[in-house]
């Protein structure tokens, strides 16, 4: 009876992890396919599709666009999120809780709606579809996240550190850069990497707001339109690999923090 239960639990766990990881494993496995179709039987391993992907100028420029977009939009989102959190934590603003709720509201709105809204606004304002437009979209979706994470870490002792710094002669800029930012560094770092991963993976907004120069997820979608191909597997595996690295970095920061 006991062993039966154990087997059941193990099977359940296996099913869950299988459900989550099997598609990824299949994706990665068939990216190593030697023949031209990503379907069994497995004929690899071969790196020819990676070679094809890495020498594809369109894909590589999309990859470059994605990296730059993720980095810059996250930097802007973190900066704005930090300043908003700092402002809310330091000053008694009228209707503070309503304003905070409004800032975090985009977290609950679907990317499709945000993308459509931005598309209409940009259209009306005469902003052409571009990477800049997509970048602004990514700031819109990531700023609430950065704000929420950083604001949650701004407790009373934060106020006391800043007060102590002022007492010891620090100007407001020095208080900000020598005390507030370093003390909140783990939260800032975490929200930056979380934004990076979201922006890196984001499709809908990038699809709606870019035209000629576009991001990697949009370019992959373009590839997929002409049917499955081990090249899509290879580029998919690369995207997955980058996400994993960012997730690990994030984990490392949090682990280091809990150990301290």
């Amino acid at each position: 009876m006991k062993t039966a239960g154990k087997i059941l639990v193990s099977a359940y766990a296996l099913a869950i992890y299988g459900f989550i990881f099997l598609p990824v494993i299949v994706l990665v496995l068939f990216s190593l396919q030697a023949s031209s179709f990503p379907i069994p039987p497995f004929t690899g391993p071969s790196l020819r599709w990676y070679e094809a992907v890495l020498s594809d100028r369109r894909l590589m420029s999309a990859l470059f666009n994605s990296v730059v977009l993720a980095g810059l939009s996250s930097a802007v989102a973190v900066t704005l999120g930090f300043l908003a959190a700092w402002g809310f934590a330091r000053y008694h603003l009228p209707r503070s809780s309503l304003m905070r709720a409004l800032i975090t509201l985009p977290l609950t709105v679907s990317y499709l709606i945000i993308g459509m809204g931005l598309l209409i606004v940009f259209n009306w304002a005469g902003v052409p579809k571009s990477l800049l437009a997509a970048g602004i979209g990514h700031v819109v979706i990531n700023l609430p996240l950065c704000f929420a994470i950083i604001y949650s870490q701004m407790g009373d002792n934060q106020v006391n550190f800043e007060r102590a710094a002022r007492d010891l002669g620090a100007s407001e800029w020095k208080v900000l850069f020598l005390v507030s930012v370093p003390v909140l560094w783990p939260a800032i770092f975490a929200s930056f990497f979380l934004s990076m991963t979201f922006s890196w993976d984001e499709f809908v907004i990038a699809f709606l707001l870019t035209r000629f120069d576009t991001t990697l997820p949009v370019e992959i979608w373009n590839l997929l339109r002409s049917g499955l191909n081990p090249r899509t597997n290879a580029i998919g595996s690369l995207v997955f690999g980058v996400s994993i690295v960012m997730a690990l970095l994030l984990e490392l920061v949090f682990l280091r923090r809990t150990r301290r």
Partner: protein
Amino acid sequence: MTGTLPGQSLSGPLVEIRKLSHSFGGHKALNEVSLTVEPGSYTVLLGPSGSGKTTLLSIIGGFVHPNEGSVFIRGNDFTRAPPARRPTATVFQDYALFPHLTVGNNVGFGLRMRGVPRAARASKVRDALAMVGLADAIHKRPHQLSGGQRQRVALARALVVEPAVLLLDEPLGALDLKLRRQMQDELKALQKRVGTAFIHVTHDQEEAMALADHCVVMSDGRIEDQGPAERVYSRPASRFSATFMGESTLISGKILDLGMDEIRVDTQVGPLSLAGAGEPGFDVSLAIRPEHITLVPESGSVSLGEAVVTDVVFQGSFKRVLAVSTRDPDVTFIAKLRSSYGVAIGDKVELYATPADMVLLSR
């Protein structure tokens, strides 16, 4: 950044506070408070929570700008100056050590803000840490230190910038009783050694008595009493001061008539004569410290009437006895009796005190 200008007199008070008033919302936290602090003195602001002592300290430190009144330090008006431009430094209640910096960099922070070069900074930091007995903690992080050690780092960090006044906001509040008494002695010794004026906020009257050269008793946004701790204890100026700084038995009464240099007061426990001045018909109170109430008459003592013992607490060298007057049940006597006295709850006793030990209070 010391506030001294060439040619400025150093003979006046170090800190002069003139008629400070401040309100938070509708609550009047300070009401026309005036205070002077002499160079090299240890001033303690004593009062219960909500008495305005912390507000007063925050105003001296520049964290709160008062509605009315002014703060002069070394003769210069600092009322509206931000904390960074004041010759003050603060030891905060929770120490507020920067968690991302080492102990050494914490202590060196103020010097760095003042543009002191690295080499000079390092040697001053070492000296400051040595002064508080933490020379070998220089490379540690604040979270690796005990509460008492953090407290010392906070002291070193504030003293290293050589402030004209050091402000301490309930600095011992977070420590356990034993450590508190030990740090209290260290604080006093440190203050005598460095010679900087300290202004220390506390609600602990024992701490106040042990530390203060000048004790300021505050209540409800006002200064109730101020002076040397011994004077404030032995001759309190108000009913509040008599009961907050140590305990007292309070007996109210009305002045009957005046003698040569004594007055007769009709009290709740009968007429008593004592030295003092006043107008006949005035309402007054008599305060008597517990150690001045006895069970047996001594030379010069007078009877306070009969009382019923309601509580006896053995406290080692003495017994703390509460007794309610049979003449007026509103009067509760508090007495510290030698432990050898055999008194028990319910006993009827006659209590005595010497008129010279009674303090006449008009408020």
